[in-house]
C-alpha cells in the first residue's frame, strides 16, 4: 500500500472503497489492500452483501472529527476482520481505528474480528482501537472478537479496549454504553484488558462509558457522534520501530499459528501471499514517513520487548477467553434483526440494562422544572429592530420606490420577499429588482404576473449574468410560448445559470423543459415542484444532459411522474445532494432503495413527504447509505415504526433538520434517537407525533443544545414542565411552535427564562413576523459552491 506512506493516512487508499468481493470477510489487511483492490475500488465499499463501508477516501481521516462518518456496516458480512495491517497505517496521527468504531454496525455480522496485528500498528499516536468501540453494534453479532493479539500490541500506550467498550451495543443497549450486562459476557474484564495492555488499563473506561439514559454519566453518552470522538482524550503516542518489529512478529505468529476455523485468515489474504517482509516494510515506511515522535518513550527497549513477549502469551490465553465469551454473548444477545430495540423486549431479560426500563422506573421525578417567580407577569417581548421596521415600511410603500441602487443583495432579497408576502408586487416593482442585469432574481410568489407582463419584463432582459432564477408559483405566466419568447428566444443563452426554480409551473411541458436545460448546461439546482405537466421524459432528459453536475433536484408533487419510470433517470445523477420526491405516486421501498444505492451517497437533504408506501426498510437503506444526511423530511409516512428510527439513528448522525409528522413513533424511540443522533439538530418538527412526552423532552434538553426551531404542535402529551425544561435548556432556541397545544398554560408561558425564544401558535399573535427569518437564506447551492461556468467572463464569482 503505497498509500500508507507518503504521509497519507493509511487507510487512505483503503478508504477509497473496499470491495471485499463477495464480502465474506473484509480484511483491512494492509497487505491485501495493497494487492487487491481495496485500494482500487475507490467508489464504495461493496462488500458483497455488506452495505456500506463508508471508508470514503477523503473522509477517512480517521480523525475524531470525521470519524462520525465512518461507518463500517457489517451488513450481512460474515466476518469483519480488521486484520490491522492497514490499520497500522491509520495511526499516523490520528486514532487508528477511530473512525472505524464510528459506526461499526455488527448488523448481521457473524464475526467481527479485530485481529489486531494491525491494530498494533495503529497505535502510532492514538488510541488504537479507539473508535471501534464507538459504535459496535453487536446486535446480531455472533462473535465479537477482540483478539487481543493486536490489541495487545495496540496498547502500546493506551487503553486499548478503551473505546471498544465505549459503544458496544449489546443489542438492547443502544449504543452508548458498554452495557454492563454485555460486559460480563464480553469478557472485557480486566483480565483481558490487563493482558491487553500490559501498561494500560484495559477496561478502564468501561464503566465510565455506561450511559444511563436517566442521564447521569456525563462523560458517557453515545459514541456515535464524531464530535465526541473528535475530542479525543489526548493520548501520547509512540511506538518505536522495535515495537513495530514486534508487531510484525506477532502477525507472523498469528498467521502461522493454527487458528480456530473462524479465525482463519480469509481467502483473500491468503491469495495475496503477503510476506512478512512487506508488512515490515510497510510498518517502517509508516514510521519513517509519519514521523512518530517518541517523546513518551519511557521504557527501555529491553523492558518493552519483554513486556511484549509476555503480552503475546497472554494474548493467546485471551483469545481463548474471547471465544468463550463471545459464544456466551451471542447466545444471550443475538436477536433477529428487525426486532424492536427500544426496550420492551429487554423487559424479559433482566440482565440487560434497558434504558427504557430505567426511564420508566424513574419516570416521575424525571422532569423537575420550576417556573420562574415573576411577579410582574410581563410576557417577554422582542424589540423589533430598526431594520425590520424600515423594511416593513418600505415594503408597504413599494410603489413609491424610485430605485434600489446601492442596496446590498441580502436586503434586496428580504425586501422582495416582504413585498411578495404583502401582495404588493407588480410589474413596476419587479422592474426595480431586475434592472441592471442582476445576478439573482428571486421572486417567491409570482402568481400576480400574467404571461404578457412576463414577456414585457423579460423580453429584452440580458440573461448573460444571471446565476439564480427563482420564479415560484408561476403557473399563470410560464408556458412554453412564454419561455420561447423570453428565456429561450433566438440567440439567447443562459451560460451562467446555476439555479432555477419554477415551482408550480403547471403549463410547462417536457419540451420546454428540454429547451431550457439545453440552453443552461451549467445548471446545478432544478426545482420543479408541482409542475403537473412534467413526465419522466423530461426528467430523463435532465438526467442525460446534467447527470454529472446536477446537485439539487426537486420534483415534489409532480403527479404525472410515476416512480417506476423515475428510477432509471435518478440513477444517472452522480452528485445529487438535495432530492425531493415528495408525493410522487407509487414510490415504494424497492424503488427508493435502487435510487439511493445508486446515487444517494452524497445526499444531504431528502424529502419523502407523503410517499406513503415507504416502510422501515427505506429508513434502513437511508441510514446505511446516506451517512452525511443533514435534512430529512418524513412527514406523513404512517408505516414507519421505531425500528426504522433506529436505523436512522445508527446511520445519520450529522442530521441537522428532521421533520417528522403524523408518524407513529413512540416517546422512547424519539428520545433515543435524539440522544444518539440528535446532537447537531437545529430544526426539529414533531408535529402531530402524538406520543411525544417526557422522555423526548428530557432528551432534547440534554442533548440538543444547538436547537433553533422546534415544532411541537398537536403534541398533546407535552406538559408545561416539559416545555419549560426544553426551553430553558436549549439556549439557542428561537422558535417554538405550539399549535393545538391547549394544555399549555401561563405557568410555562410566563415562567420560562429564555428571552430569545418566540412562541407561536398559542394565541395567534405575531404569527408571520418572524416565522421565516430564522435561517439565513441559502445564497447559492445549499451544500456546495456554485461552480464557475467554463468560458464565462464572470470572474468575480461569489462562492458560498
Amino acid at each position: 500500500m503505497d498509500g500508507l506512506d507518503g504521509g497519507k493516512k493509511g487507510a487512505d487508499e483503503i478508504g477509497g472503497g473496499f470491495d471485499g468481493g463477495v464480502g465474506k470477510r473484509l480484511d483491512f489487511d494492509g497487505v491485501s489492500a495493497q494487492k487487491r483492490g481495496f485500494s482500487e475500488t475507490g467508489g464504495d465499499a461493496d462488500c458483497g452483501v455488506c452495505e456500506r463501508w463508508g471508508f470514503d477516501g477523503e473522509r477517512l481521516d480517521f480523525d475524531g472529527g470525521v470519524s462520525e462518518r465512518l461507518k463500517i456496516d457489517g451488513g450481512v458480512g460474515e466476518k469483519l476482520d480488521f486484520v490491522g495491517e492497514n490499520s497500522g497505517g491509520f495511526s499516523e496521527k490520528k486514532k487508528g481505528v477511530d473512525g472505524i468504531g464510528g459506526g461499526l454496525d455488527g448488523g448481521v455480522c457473524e464475526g467481527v474480528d479485530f485481529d489486531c496485528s494491525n491494530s498494533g500498528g495503529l497505535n502510532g499516536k492514538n488510541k488504537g482501537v479507539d473508535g471501534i468501540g464507538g459504535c459496535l453494534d453487536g446486535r446480531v453479532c455472533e462473535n465479537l472478537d477482540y483478539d487481543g493479539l493486536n490489541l495487545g500490541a495496540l496498547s502500546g500506550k493506551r487503553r486499548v479496549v478503551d473505546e471498544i467498550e465505549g459503544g458496544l451495543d449489546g443489542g438492547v443497549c443502544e449504543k452508548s454504553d458498554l452495557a454492563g450486562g454485555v460486559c460480563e459476557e464480553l469478557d472485557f474484564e480486566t483480565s483481558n484488558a490487563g493482558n491487553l495492555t500490559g501498561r494500560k488499563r484495559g477496561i478502564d473506561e468501561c464503566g465510565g462509558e455506561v450511559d444511563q439514559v436517566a442521564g447521569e454519566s456525563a462523560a458517557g453518552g453515545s459514541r456515535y457522534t464524531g464530535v465526541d470522538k473528535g475530542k479525543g482524550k489526548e493520548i501520547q503516542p509512540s511506538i518505536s520501530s522495535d515495537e513495530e518489529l514486534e508487531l510484525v512478529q506477532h502477525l507472523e505468529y498469528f498467521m502461522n499459528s493454527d487458528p480456530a476455523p473462524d479465525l482463519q485468515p480469509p481467502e483473500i489474504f491468503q491469495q495475496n501471499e503477503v510476506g512478512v517482509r512487506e508488512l515490515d516494510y510497510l510498518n517502517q515506511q509508516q514510521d519513517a514517513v509519519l514521523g512518530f515522535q517518541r517523546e513518551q518513550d519511557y521504557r527501555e527497549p529491553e523492558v518493552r520487548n519483554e513486556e511484549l513477549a509476555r503480552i503475546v502469551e497472554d494474548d493467546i490465553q485471551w483469545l481463548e477467553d474471547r471465544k468463550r465469551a463471545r459464544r456466551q454473548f451471542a447466545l444471550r444477545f443475538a436477536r433477529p434483526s428487525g426486532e424492536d430495540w427500544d426496550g420492551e423486549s429487554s423487559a424479559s431479560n433482566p440482565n440487560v440494562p434497558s434504558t427504557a426500563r430505567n426511564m420508566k422506573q424513574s419516570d416521575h421525578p424525571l422532569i423537575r422544572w420550576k417556573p420562574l417567580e415573576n411577579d410582574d407577569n410581563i410576557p417577554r417581548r422582542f424589540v423589533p429592530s430598526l431594520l425590520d421596521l424600515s423594511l416593513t415600511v418600505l415594503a408597504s410603500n413599494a410603489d413609491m420606490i424610485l430605485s434600489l441602487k446601492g442596496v446590498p443583495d441580502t436586503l434586496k432579497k428580504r425586501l422582495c420577499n416582504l413585498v411578495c408576502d404583502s401582495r404588493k408586487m407588480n410589474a413596476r416593482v419587479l422592474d426595480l429588482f431586475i434592472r441592471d442585469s442582476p445576478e439573482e432574481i428571486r421572486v417567491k410568489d409570482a402568481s400576480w404576473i400574467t404571461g404578457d407582463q412576463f414577456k414585457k419584463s423579460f423580453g429584452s432582459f440580458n440573461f448573460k449574468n444571471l446565476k439564480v432564477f427563482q420564479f415560484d408559483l408561476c403557473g399563470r405566466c410560464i408556458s412554453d410560448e412564454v419561455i420561447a419568447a423570453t428565456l429561450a428566444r433566438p440567440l439567447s443563452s443562459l451560460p451562467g445559470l446555476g439555479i432555477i426554480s419554477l415551482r408550480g409551473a403547471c403549463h410547462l411541458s417536457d419540451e420546454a423543459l428540454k429547451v431550457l436545460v439545453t440552453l443552461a448546461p451549467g445548471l446545478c439546482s432544478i426545482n420543479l415542484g408541482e409542475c403537473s405537466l412534467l413526465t419522466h421524459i423530461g426528467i430523463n432528459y435532465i438526467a442525460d444532459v446534467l447527470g454529472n453536475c446536477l446537485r439539487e433536484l426537486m420534483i415534489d408533487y409532480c403527479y404525472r411522474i410515476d416512480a417506476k419510470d423515475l428510477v432509471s433517470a435518478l440513477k444517472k445523477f452522480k452528485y445529487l445532494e438535495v432530492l425531493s420526491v415528495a408525493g410522487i405516486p407509487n414510490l415504494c421501498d424497492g424503488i427508493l432503495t435502487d435510487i439511493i444505492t445508486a446515487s444517494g451517497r452524497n445526499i444531504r437533504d431528502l424529502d419523502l413527504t407523503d410517499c406513503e408506501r415507504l416502510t422501515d426498510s427505506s429508513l434502513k437503506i437511508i441510514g446505511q447509505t446516506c451517512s452525511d444526511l443533514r435534512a430529512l423530511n418524513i412527514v406523513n409516512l404512517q408505516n414507519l415504526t421505531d425500528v426504522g428510527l433506529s436505523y436512522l439513528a445508527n446511520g445519520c448522525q450529522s442530521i441537522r433538520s428532521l421533520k417528522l409528522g403524523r408518524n407513529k413513533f413512540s416517546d422512547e424511540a424519539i428520545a433515543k434517537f435524539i440522544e444518539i443522533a440528535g446532537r447537531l439538530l437545529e430544526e426539529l418538527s414533531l408535529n402531530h407525533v402524538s406520543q411525544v412526552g417526557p422522555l423526548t423532552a428530557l432528551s432534547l434538553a440534554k442533548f440538543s443544545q444547538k436547537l433553533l426551531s422546534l415544532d411541537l404542535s398537536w403534541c398533546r402529551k407535552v406538559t408545561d414542565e416539559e416545555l419549560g425544561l426544553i426551553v430553558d435548556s436549549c439556549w439557542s432556541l428561537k422558535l417554538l411552535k405550539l399549535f393545538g397545544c391547549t394544555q399549555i398554560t401561563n405557568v410555562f408561558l410566563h415562567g420560562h427564562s429564555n428571552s430569545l425564544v418566540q412562541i407561536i401558535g398559542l394565541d395567534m399573535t405575531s404569527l408571520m413576523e418572524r416565522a421565516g427569518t430564522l435561517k439565513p437564506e441559502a445564497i447559492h447551492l445549499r451544500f456546495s459552491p456554485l461552480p464557475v461556468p467554463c468560458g464565462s467572463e464572470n470572474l468575480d464569482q461569489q462562492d458560498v
Partner: protein
Amino acid sequence: MKKEDTVKLISAEGFEFIIDKKAAMVSQTIRNMLTSPGSFSETEHGRVSFPEISTTILEKICQYFHWSLQYASGKETEFHIEPELTLELMMAANYLHT
C-alpha cells in the same frame, strides 16, 4: 447626564448627537466599537463618526434607540417612519446592525 455616560455620534455633515451610552448600545456595531478590547479611538474619546450617514437619518436612529429602550421596559408604542427616509434608514440600520 454625566459625560462618562454619553457618546457623541457625528453625522456626515458634522452634526453631533450626544446620547446616552445605554441607548447607543442598542446598535450592535456601536456596542462593539465602544466595548471591545484594544483601543479604538472611539472608546477613548467617546465619539463615533459616521461619514456615510446623513443628519436626518442619524437623528431618526437616535430616536429609535430611545424608543427601543422604552419598548423593552414595557411601554409599547409605535415607531413611525416617514416613507422618504425609509430606504436610507434601512441601509443605515443594516450597517449599524440595529
